[in-house]
């Protein structure tokens, strides 16, 4: 179906000099539109140099991920205190905790008004804000960042809600690749049992009641978590997670984590994370300038 309003209108006949004027102004517009692309690439080069220089001084990003009831928080705390005892400066990064978006998500969760898309988009905004304001500054300053749930939480849960993984990955692009991801593999049954043993049962969205339409939160959770586990298993292959058997004892898991950490390898920033870092460095410079001028 063709809509006539979209057809280009015939150009009015113009005198030669008028045509020239138009060409000149068009060139000007184009130059303005390009917005100093040369300047931008210079800045990018400068940022890439900075990123290269910081590689040795930067911190290490470790993510702990897995379904609810897999014991990742317990292990994250144990690992963080072990790192501190080894003399590292540790910063913790928590999921869904940004002052910008958390209140929005909380209010909508309460009202049960979130659609899977809206939930995924708000969480992506929340994650990005946390990354810009907590994770990247800490890493840049050489701290060890231990993240209790990373973007894989959203990928697994939202994919379990029926959203496409490609679209979800795009929300988090450009990705900040962690140096290491520990995935706590647990069976849906064990996860369900552990959650059932807690004083408070799973909440509406944690139980996946928005998509299962099951009234009993625990029953809904059992169904939802099996989908989540499937998604995690697929992600663990794509992103090469370090798999921790979360059915084992707390001590055994901790020992496995330490051993894996001691064999750690950095993901070079220039190779893996240059885009996200250049973006962040540029903004950081701007904000610092504004703060300085405000002080001045």
């Amino acid at each position, binding site marked *: 179906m063709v809509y006539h*309003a979209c057809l280009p209108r015939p150009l009015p006949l113009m005198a030669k000099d008028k045509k020239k004027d138009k060409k000149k102004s068009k060139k000007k517009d184009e130059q303005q539109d390009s*917005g100093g692309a040369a300047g931008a690439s210079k800045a990018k080069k400068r940022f890439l140099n900075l990123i290269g220089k910081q590689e040795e001084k930067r911190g290490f990003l470790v993510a702990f991920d897995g379904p609810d009831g897999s014991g990742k928080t317990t292990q994250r705390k144990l690992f963080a205190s072990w790192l501190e005892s080894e003399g590292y400066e540790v910063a913790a990064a928590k999921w869904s905790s940004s002052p910008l978006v958390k*209140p929005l998500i909380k209010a909508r969760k309460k009202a049960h008004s979130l659609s899977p898309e809206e939930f995924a988009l708000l969480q992506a905004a929340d994650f990005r804000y946390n990354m810009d304001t907590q994770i990247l500054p800490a890493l840049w300053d050489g701290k060890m960042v231990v993240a209790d749930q990373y973007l894989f939480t959203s990928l697994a849960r939202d994919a379990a809600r029926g959203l496409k993984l490609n679209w979800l990955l795009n929300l988090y692009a450009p990705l900040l690749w962690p140096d290491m991801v520990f995935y706590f593999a647990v069976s849906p049954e064990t996860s369900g049992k552990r959650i059932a043993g807690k004083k408070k049962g799973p909440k509406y969205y944690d139980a996946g009641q928005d998509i299962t339409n099951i009234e009993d939160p625990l029953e809904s959770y059992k169904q939802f978590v099996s989908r989540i586990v499937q998604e995690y298993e697929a992600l663990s292959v794509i992103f090469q997670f370090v798999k921790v058997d979360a059915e084992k004892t707390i001590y055994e898991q901790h020992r496995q984590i330490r051993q894996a950490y001691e064999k750690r390898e950095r993901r070079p920033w220039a190779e893996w994370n240059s885009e996200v870092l250049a973006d962040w460095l540029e903004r950081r410079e701007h904000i610092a300038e504004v703060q300085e001028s405000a002080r001045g």
Partner: protein
Amino acid sequence: MAKAKRKKSAAPEAGMGRKGRLIALEGTSGPPLEEAALKLVRSLGSDKNPAGLSRFDASNTFYDLRLRKVKTMNPSPRELILLYASDLAFRVRWEITPAVQAGMCVVAAPYVHSIIGFGEALGMTRRWLTDLFSFAPEPEAVLRIKEKKKKIRKKGWRFKAADGYLEFCCASLAAGSKDFQPAEIRAAAVAYLQELEKEERCGKLGKRALRDLHAEDEEEKKEDQAEADSDDEGDEEEEDDEE
């Protein structure tokens, strides 16, 4: 105007009997966009087939952020675009889809393209932006209000954060950067819309566009009528056979 083929909207609810329409109206400044959108709604709607407007911030996301003085939090352009997308997901779910399914004509102002232009001006790739908004249903037509980038560059841009999405973002981003030039960013977004128009993926809102939209409407009415008549004839024939 968009060449996007009209998606056969889901079956209209009983009694409504008409297919819904979604018209995207794009523009880079809140107040003129709102004014134009209201005019378009009045022009397209009638007592029998009402038209409605789906505005930015139906979910109150940005209102809430303004109350919490988001400027001091320095959100990044990408975060602001993600928040817009979440608001649009809300609009699609609660306003656009139900209204279109009920056979209404919905004007969404702004919809996707103004934001893609704005995002691109702020350094995001068109591919990322297009993929981000892929959840939004394709509109039957895309129109843009008359805006000139040269004029914006010449005269600058005075705005209030409460005026619209671009205004909100520019106010927040200007708080975090001394060099931030809202007029330049807005002009670049207008340039994107102009580019779409050149590619015939968007039309300019005016008498001609309105005439075409009404003509489409009339055509569809006739088609519906013809379909209904042929159905009636079929029913009558069946009844005769039974007798």
